[in-house]
């Protein structure tokens, strides 16, 4: 029973990983930008959620009204700069690394390096749990999983059905041809990056509800979330949720059966194996070359 509980809790935690990974996967797959600053934006959203909810004494879920636009603008501005300077895929990794450490240091200067956590007076979700039979699902991760699921469905539909979504996919497959058909990739790119910023706001908010944070938390996410992006298949939104759940299950089981510290060992071994045998993600999509 404890193993089953660990597996289910793991899936829910995986929802949070997926939430963090969706934006990263979208911009990498569609815009050829590896945006490490995404982690800085998640962290900043978490701190803003903490600061606004504590300062105004409101429900942390309401803070998304403020954080989502901020992150949209931040991410869109960064993408504008990437396009303005025609930054290559690899240089985007270096530049956004620089932006990430600037964000982390700024956060550290504002909120100090101490652990911060939403007080139970403003956070009605911290102790709640949904019980089904003998299994308990803690509220914060449940919320994260449901949000991730909803976001995946919404994004998949948007990519499939809307003009902007089709334009993005066309552009990611063949930029010159897409441009020849009148697709303005710059506006589409900025819009997509902005949407990725909103996912960062969501991820940050849900992280703040569930746990405590220090500025260096952002760097701790990097490895695990990239594992989810790569396992899910770069640019594959639905894949990130599956990969997140898988990573969550593995982490949960290894934690229970072996040791919490051993979890990264197992997860990253899986990533290396996946890169060896499944370079295009666990569930390769489509039949393109």
């Amino acid at each position, binding site marked *: 029973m404890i193993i089953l509980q660990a597996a289910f809790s793991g899936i829910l935690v995986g929802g949070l990983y997926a939430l963090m990974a969706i934006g990263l996967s979208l911009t990498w797959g569609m815009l050829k930008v590896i945006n490490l600053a995404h982690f800085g934006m998640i962290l900043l959203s978490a701190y803003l959620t903490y600061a606004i909810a504590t300062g105004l004494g409101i429900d942390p879920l309401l803070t998304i009204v403020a954080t989502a636009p901020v992150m949209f603008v931040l991410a869109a501005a960064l993408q504008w700069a990437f396009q303005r300077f025609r930054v290559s895929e690899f240089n985007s990794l*270096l530049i956004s690394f620089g*932006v990430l450490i600037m964000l982390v240091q700024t956060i550290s200067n504002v909120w100090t390096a101490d652990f911060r956590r939403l007080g139970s007076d403003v956070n009605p979700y911290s102790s709640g749990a949904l019980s089904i039979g003998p299994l308990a699902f803690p509220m914060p991760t449940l919320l994260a999983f449901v949000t991730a699921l909803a976001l995946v469905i919404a994004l998949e539909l948007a990519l499939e059905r809307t003009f902007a979504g089709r334009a993005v996919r066309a552009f990611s497959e063949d930029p010159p041809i897409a441009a020849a058909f009148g697709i303005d990739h710059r506006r589409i790119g900025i819009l997509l990056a902005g949407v990725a910023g909103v996912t960062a706001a969501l991820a940050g908010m849900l992280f703040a509800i569930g746990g405590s944070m220090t500025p260096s938390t952002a760097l701790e996410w990097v490895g695990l979330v990239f594992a989810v992006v790569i396992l899910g298949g770069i640019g594959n939104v639905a894949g990130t949720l599956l990969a997140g759940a898988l990573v969550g299950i593995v982490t949960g089981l290894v934690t229970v059966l072996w040791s919490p510290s051993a979890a*990264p060992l197992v997860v*990253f071994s899986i990533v290396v194996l996946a890169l060896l045998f499944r370079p295009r993600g666990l569930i390769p999509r489509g039949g393109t070359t």
Partner: protein
Amino acid sequence: MARRTLLALAVAFAVLAAVPWIREPLGVPVFYLAFGALVFFWVAQATSWNLLSGYTGYFSFGQGAFFGVGVYTSAVLSGRGGMDYFLTIPLAGIVAALLGLAVGGVAFRLRSLRGEIFALLTLAVPFILASFARINTAIDGGQGIVLRIPEFPEFLGGFQDLAYLLSLGVAGLAVGIAYVAQHSRFGWALFAIRDAENVAEGLGVPTFGYKMLAIGLSAALAGMAGSVFALQIGFVTVEGTFNLTVPLFVIVMSVLGGRMHWLGPALGALIIVTLQDRLAAQGFEGYSLIILGAILVSLVLLAPEGLMARLRPRLLPVVAAAGAVYLALAVTGVWGAPLDWFAVALVAAAVVAFWPRRRTVAAARAAALGGIAPVEEVEDEDLTDTAAPEALPTPPAERAIGRPIIEAHDLTRHFGGIRALDGISLTIHEGEVVGLVGPNGSGKTTLVNLLSGALRPTSGDIRIDGRSVLGLPAHRLAHAGAARTYQIPRPFGSMTVRDNVAIAIMFGREAASLATARREARQHLELVGLVRHADALPGEINLHERQLLEIARAIATRPRVLLLDEALAGLNPAEIDNAAGVVRRVHESGIAIVLVEHVLRIVNQLATRVVVLDQGRLLAEGEPADVMRNADVVRAYLGRRAHA
């Protein structure tokens, strides 16, 4: 030149090594020893990182792993096991090198490996090691390890002197190795990998081996520096060791100093450490990472080539600016201590070096060429091409057909569900020019990729001189005598036209030294008519000339069969005729040719035999004139109704 640099290095090392004995008479505070040790630690780390990542272009985010393994090797063996500390320094290097080889052995075998994937893979390694060290009580177990100060000889004043000298030793070793690497075959191989890895492999460079050597050496140096660092801080923890500080700093330092030059990372390390130290001393500690991040962002955007490349054309103004600023501060004495003045002088020097200025052609070339040594002796008496193509007699391509060289048997290659090649058997004989034609997508380029070893067949066999070469890496096929060109020219962009050819000679069937290779390169450039561009960069010549460079580079490997993949694509009629003349001359020099071509006029002129592919199958084969009249061939080219 080289000897003078080495001498200067040795003198600098000796002066720095003498500091512990002359510091008291000179009244230098002990603080400078600690500062020097810190600088040398980062010089070693950054130089070691650059040996792998700067030279090959594979950015590693895993420097912290190699460093950390060095730290923990010494901490566990000496701190816990009681082994003599000094013995653990080389052991730390060995253990780190083994880790590096393990990482490289996995990563460099990934067929889908790209720079980004390598960066992320290496990013994961420190996290795996951290969790391993945390759960394993024999290593750390989560409490950290204390290192005792070892006994050291009496002639050293104190522990600071020891730490200083050890750090200097590792840094000197790292810089020395980087220097030697850059000026040897090893360095040239790495630069070729950075510019165009598949091309380098196809020209005979054993890329896997060189990459493994680079990652092994780099890791060993990082591990030894880590071992010294562990002794200096005396108490090591998992959190303090396996984090992103080391990879972050080495990347910023190397990008700042310049990744193409052996001294670049050391220069970057000196500047960054001095700045960090002074910022902290002035109470701006909280801004150091912000400044570091800003430096990284602006460098990548505005000056990705780094300081060393900028220094060459304006060395005097830079040194003058630094000296003037330092002297002004020292003489007026209104502010700060010597180290502050030094920091400000460094910043002034960097500003002068990076100051945007209209770049002269020479400066741009120096930037692009980076640290690669220029040709020292130019022995070309006249720079015009002596062998004008028109002047040569051009008899029809008739040579005696000799023994078979390449025999392909029943080759099949699938891509996913697509059969790009389906049961092709083909033999290339000595003295032949085989025209390989067919509509787009018929499998011509796939066949070239299989015959050159760039791809492996799904099934079938390839023999060269009767021996199967199936599964051999491409550089072995190059040594066996199969060379190829690419449809879209892929020159080594940071090397001159001459050096592009020279590298093929250096790593060809008979290894040659750089000097020999540069001398021999001339004859190949003459054959294709590129001598007058020998010292140009590939970016400075036109498409036709780059395609001729592809041919020159391929024949420089002294192949027996040359696979030309649409070497005439995109050329105008005059250029096509010139290129056809080049192909004919290559053939006359005794090299069999496989000519993948769409221009049938040229195929008819040159080929002794024509092979037609359609949808991955062999459609027809024979004398050019006969094949062109074949009804199936006409149908494949012109559609079904054309023949009716």
